[in-house]
């Protein structure tokens, strides 16, 4: 296993960090922390059969934060000298009422995460660029071989290697090394002036070998090509209210948008979520149990520790339809007096910590997926989605299908394009009447945006039947 990230990699010593923490942790400050981060990311991309672009980015810096009551003071610097730390500390503690009265800090406790969820032998960043280039070239060939109507293939390989150290005013000093990568393929198909696209990909906190195992990269290429070709023959999506069957895997984005965001503790504390005051209430049908779990090995949304040094965990959000828990970071757990779940996350040292999801999924049920489809007389079968969005205050969410079919008399028939689903978060899961036994996690391409910060996440879902949801297409109902 790789050495855990240590302070000396940032050219700083423990006394220097304690000194800065001491400056921030004045009497009125409840909690302060320093977040050191160094990140190397690389992107190689291909189009028109050529790997034309390679981009590398190196960044490092420190975020200094102080919280007092509900207030947060935050400053960051991309310089890591003792003096820059002090300037940032002074800025962060400004939020304290009386920025005087330093308090003694507890003895530093150097720790390592208890788990190693992503023991990557060789990070992809260390794999020669030419090996990645070769894989992209193979993908191009595979996608074009799939069907001559594939006219362009765009593929990109993004990798990131992040080292972080968190030092808190409670004396904790803990580090983690977080690899992350993603391989994504988009194909454009063309026939008689009709042009359509298809996208597929995967990734996680994994090594380069992952993409070759089980010929994953070949599958990504074929899936993207298949979707593009399929869409050439797709008809306009229907419009109106109808039953919808969601396939397992990536359609779990429904849970992320419709439920997950509304259960993030910052919205709950501010009473701005449609789920405020619903703890213990029924928000889903009996067959629905939903968890957020940051401890799944190698998954894109997983972390050994969150960005406050708290171990990640498995949190049951909804148990057999009853709302059981929220997603918390330190600040909001403390203010709400609820358990700390290890979901305090930030995009980088330049952003503040927010409660964010990790891997969010519904547990498997008992229905046979084929029976679920057979149960629908007329409706939609949605297999894959583009993106989704939610208004957490009124609970309305939407998401757009990238691969969907009509269900007619219990059978999957024609592919449809341009289907958008819209619904109400607190209501939608009460309309889930069947849950399949086929829980599938997504391929590892999800990125969640909140307050302008992007973080990697995972989702998962078994095949489920939603009795009614509004489908927004242009076709006939």
């Amino acid at each position, binding site marked *: 296993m790789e050495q855990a990230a240590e302070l000396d990699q940032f050219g700083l010593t423990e006394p220097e960090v304690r000194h800065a923490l001491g400056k921030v942790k004045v009497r009125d400050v409840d909690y302060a922390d320093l977040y050191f981060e160094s990140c190397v990311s690389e992107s*190689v991309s291909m*189009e028109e059969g*050529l*790997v*034309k*672009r*390679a*981009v*590398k*980015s*190196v960044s*490092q810096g420190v975020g200094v934060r102080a919280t007092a009551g*509900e*207030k*947060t*003071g*935050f*400053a960051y610097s*991309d310089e890591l000298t003792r003096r820059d730390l002090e300037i*940032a500390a002074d*800025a*962060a503690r*400004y*939020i304290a009422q009386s920025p005087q009265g330093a308090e003694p800090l507890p003895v530093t406790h150097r720790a390592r995460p208890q788990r190693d969820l992503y023991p990557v032998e060789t990070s992809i960043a260390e794999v020669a*660029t*030419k090996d990645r*280039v070769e894989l992209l070239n193979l993908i191009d060939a595979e996608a074009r071989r799939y069907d001559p109507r594939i*006219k*362009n293939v765009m593929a990109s390989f993004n990798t990131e290697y992040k080292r972080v150290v968190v030092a808190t005013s409670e004396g904790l000093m803990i580090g983690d090394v977080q690899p992350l990568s993603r391989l994504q393929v988009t194909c*454009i198909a063309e026939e008689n002036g009709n*042009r*359509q*696209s298809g996208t597929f990909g995967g990734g996680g906190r994994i090594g380069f070998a992952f993409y070759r195992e089980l010929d994953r990269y070949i599958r990504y290429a074929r899936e993207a090509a298949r979707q593009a070709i399929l869409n050439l023959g797709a008809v306009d*999506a229907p*419009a109106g*209210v109808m039953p919808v069957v969601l396939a397992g895997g990536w359609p779990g984005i429904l849970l992320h948008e419709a439920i997950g965001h509304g259960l993030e503790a910052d919205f709950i504390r501010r009473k*701005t979520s449609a789920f405020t005051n619903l703890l213990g209430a029924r928000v889903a049908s009996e067959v629905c149990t939903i968890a957020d779990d940051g401890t799944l090995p190698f998954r894109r949304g997983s972390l050994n520790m969150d960005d406050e040094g708290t171990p990640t965990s498995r949190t049951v959000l909804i148990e057999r339809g009853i709302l059981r828990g929220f997603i918390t970071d330190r600040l909001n757990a403390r203010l709400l007096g609820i358990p700390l779940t290890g979901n305090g996350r930030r995009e980088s040292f330049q952003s*503040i910590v927010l409660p964010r999801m990790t891997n969010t999924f519904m547990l498997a049920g008992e229905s046979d997926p084929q029976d679920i489809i057979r149960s629908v007389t007329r409706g939609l079968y949605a297999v894959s989605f*583009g*993106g*989704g*969005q939610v208004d957490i*205050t*009124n609970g*309305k969410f*939407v*998401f*757009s299908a990238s691969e969907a079919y009509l269900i007619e008399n219990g059978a999957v028939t024609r592919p449809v*394009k*341009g*289907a*958008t689903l*819209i*619904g*109400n978060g607190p209501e939608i899961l009460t309309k889930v009447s069947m849950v399949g036994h086929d829980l599938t996690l997504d391929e590892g391409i999800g990125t969640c945006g909140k307050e302008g910060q992007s973080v990697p996440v995972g989702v998962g879902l078994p095949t489920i039947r939603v009795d009614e949801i*509004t*489908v*927004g*297409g*242009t076709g006939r109902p």
Partner: protein
Amino acid sequence: MRQELDLKELTGDMLAKATQHGASGADVMVADGDTFSVQVRLGAVDRLTKAREKRVGLRVFFGKRSASASTSDFSRESLDRLVSDTCALAAAVAEDEMSGLPAGDLMAHELPDLDLYDPTVLDTAAQIELARRAEASAMAADARITNSEGSDFNSSAGRVVLANTHGFLGEHRSSSFAMSVSPIATDPDSGGMQRDSWYAVQRKFARLDSPESVGLEAARRTVRRLGARKVTTRRAPVIFDQETAGSLLANLCSAVSGYALYKGASFLIGQLGNRLAPETVTIYDNGRLPGGLGSRPFDGEGLPTRRTTVVERGILASYLLDTYSGRKLGLASTGNASRGVGESPSVGPTNFYMVPGTADPSEIIRSVREGLYVTELIGFGVNMVTGDYSRGAAGIWIKNGELAYPVEEITIAGNLTRMFADIELVGNDLEFRGRIACPTIKIGEMTIAGN
């Protein structure tokens, strides 16, 4: 304030080193700046953020091979590593016939002062007070405003320096001041909540709307959503307000990007010179509007910015291009290279807007017997390849030419090609609140899905 780095020397050194490594051409971009933001919630400070940032990016060409890299570490050792890493990366990629710097004689010579920089520095207390006033005005505007996601005030200033091996060296400074408020209203009968927001953003502090007016508008937009219901599925006229019309224009802007076009990923391929919209629609991209939020004297490759007529009286007159995408399409750059530090250029708008028409927004609403006035769009249901459009919407239902009641949990769907062709009215209310701006517009008919 931080001590200013001598960027002229720094960029010159890096270009020289890249050349020593054998690069046939290179450019260096440096950005640095300070930002300060405050967030106030329910009258109290919720968050203060202070930051200074800098970044340097290098792009090298070895004949037809190219790569880019960037770092935030300006130490000599780090910059040397940046040069050697970038050169090594370039060796790993394929030759690309169209790659390379723009021709040297095309570089911007005159760099006009576009009035983009305001040296005003607001202290912490002043910024907190501005945010507080904006939120207080929203909270006091209506008894149904019961809560708030807070009010933000953000100020930033910075500079961008670009240099290349043609000897181009350009620098420009800019600043921005932005304020936003997100109140929450509760329906006294049902207890249902709604949130909306309003904002103001300017390069000059003195031109910013008053906090009170921003707060009042935020409250007005929030309260009018209370009691929203669904409507039944049907086809009907749809009026896009300034904000949602702006998002529609942003979709068009993506479709005229040279990159989307040469990749085959735009519904406007091969449409140059064809009718896109009625005569009443003219769209410009103008990089030289004084004080404009998208203005800049030179683009991400050092070419002069300019005014490009994208749609002239309904005819698609120009795409937006940088050097590379222009070469791919056999066209000249329009000075729209847009670029993050250390990235290769892509195409971006400067100030992209539809020329205002003559109709007052209230007249446009009166012209609809039954239809939707859309004030919010959510989700990502726009397919750039086909133009298929289906997004979640909220707004106000129009009955007999009047705004009757709020609606939500519906979608509006169509196809961008048909939607632009079907623009029936263009409002007289163009206002810039970002780089893309559009007056109120009316589209003849779209599919609305609800109950």
